[in-house]
């Protein structure tokens, strides 16, 4: 496979931020997703698994959470707990984009 890379090189591109929602079951598997299929699945899975982990750790610290809202400088992730699974909304944050409520 290495020679193909040498022949064609890799295309110049920028990783887009995801937009949409995903539902994950308690085992960390994506059940439904409205995020573009262009967005790498491993990254989407990483978001879901980290969110599930945060809900789990909060439970084990005896502070069960129902909602988690993570604000990065250019992305917002809102997650709701669903009986062990989670429903996650992902919104890029740009200066022109309206802030979702």
């Amino acid at each position, binding site marked *: 496979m290495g020679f193909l890379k040498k022949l064609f090189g890799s295309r*110049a591109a920028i990783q887009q931020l995801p937009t949409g929602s995903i539902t994950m079951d308690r085992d960390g598997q994506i059940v439904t997703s409205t995020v573009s299929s262009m967005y790498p699945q491993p990254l989407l899975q990483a978001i879901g698994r980290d969110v599930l982990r945060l809900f789990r750790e909060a439970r084990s610290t005896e502070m069960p959470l129902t909602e988690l809202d993570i604000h990065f*400088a250019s992305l917002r992730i809102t997650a709701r707990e669903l009986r062990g699974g989670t429903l996650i909304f992902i919104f*890029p944050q740009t200066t022109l984009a309206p802030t979702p409520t």
Partner: protein
Amino acid sequence: MSHHWTTGLLFVQIVAKWRQEKLISTVPIGNTDCFGETMLPLQAEICGTVAAVDATEMETHHKILILDDDADWLDLCRELLVPLPSKPEIRTVSSGARALALLESEPFRLLVCDLKMPRMDGLQVLAIVRRRFPGLRTVVLSGLEDEEFRSRAYALGVDLFWLKADMQQNTQMFLDCLESLLGREVDGGFRGIQSKSLMDIIQMECLSRSSTVLRISRGPLTAKMWIQDGEVIDAETEGTRGETAVRRILAWKSGTFESLPAEPSRERTIIKPINALLLESAQTIDESANATELESMEQDVHRKTVWKLGLLMREGAEFVVSVPLDGQGAPEALGTQSTEQLADWTRQVAEVIKRLGERIEAGPLSHVAAKGADRQLLILPSERKSFLVGWPPGDAADEILEKSKRLVVSWDS
């Protein structure tokens, strides 16, 4: 082929335009720019900085690293940047990995970075640079006219985002901005007057016998100081007024300030001359810095605890846990018995989310809000520590965020 042809044409146009601008720029700079058009204040400031740099002939030659996957564009940039007044040394690289290796091996002052590149894109490079070289100035020079990328770049802390297409129109302005970034030192102090403390600023206002109202901000905290004919007549901040407010304001080490029109009708609450107040404050700061006696330290800790408890009650929070980074001191808490447990959880959450943000290139973490059945939580990370603030359920999220920020700034001041 067409890509190279376009770059070549842009190259010729930009160089021609820039050379024309260089001829015009010998006109003295007043309130108009190099094209004779009215300048915005920031542009005027930049031009002023450049004029100052010209006059003093900078002795140090800073190094600029340009990163772009287009070799023609690198040549163009090199030709444009070499004649900058500070005579910087220009280095060019065509991949993110090489740029990072070079930054590791030599000190650079400024990185000019493209966004759309193969293998490692510009945002990935900038995210790494921000973490490894916090003092490095960064400029994005991109062909992508997309607001999302501009926002993401600024979210990563870049100093300037410039479109390649704009280079043709505003080459000289771009060069002036770079020159300004090269000359700017990373000192503390109040924005606008670098490396000057608030005491210096107040002294300057008083010595010039001016009348003004200084509005001073430090994060979400704001203060006002009324100066009339060179005398401080009143001040207020955080619910305090008069001399107490002055002492509290003078303890702030950094922030921003602006001068508002004078208010001669303001009631006078401060009788002491400003020099006496400044001296008292300086002594208090020195004493608190040099206090070594156990007794005075214990009193100090007790006073701080009472003051922090007052803050907590005033804002209506249930508890606050201040969590230093691993191995940098013990967590501190008020309003809860489960300090260690909450501190561990906060550390874990901050760590997991920080790593996630880096992986998905979402920029630095701003804050995390969480809701449970019987309370709301807010995690505010900063460079040296994270804060966990607990709130009763029902309060609006925006209100909680504002109150938490106020609490954290006061807590640390």
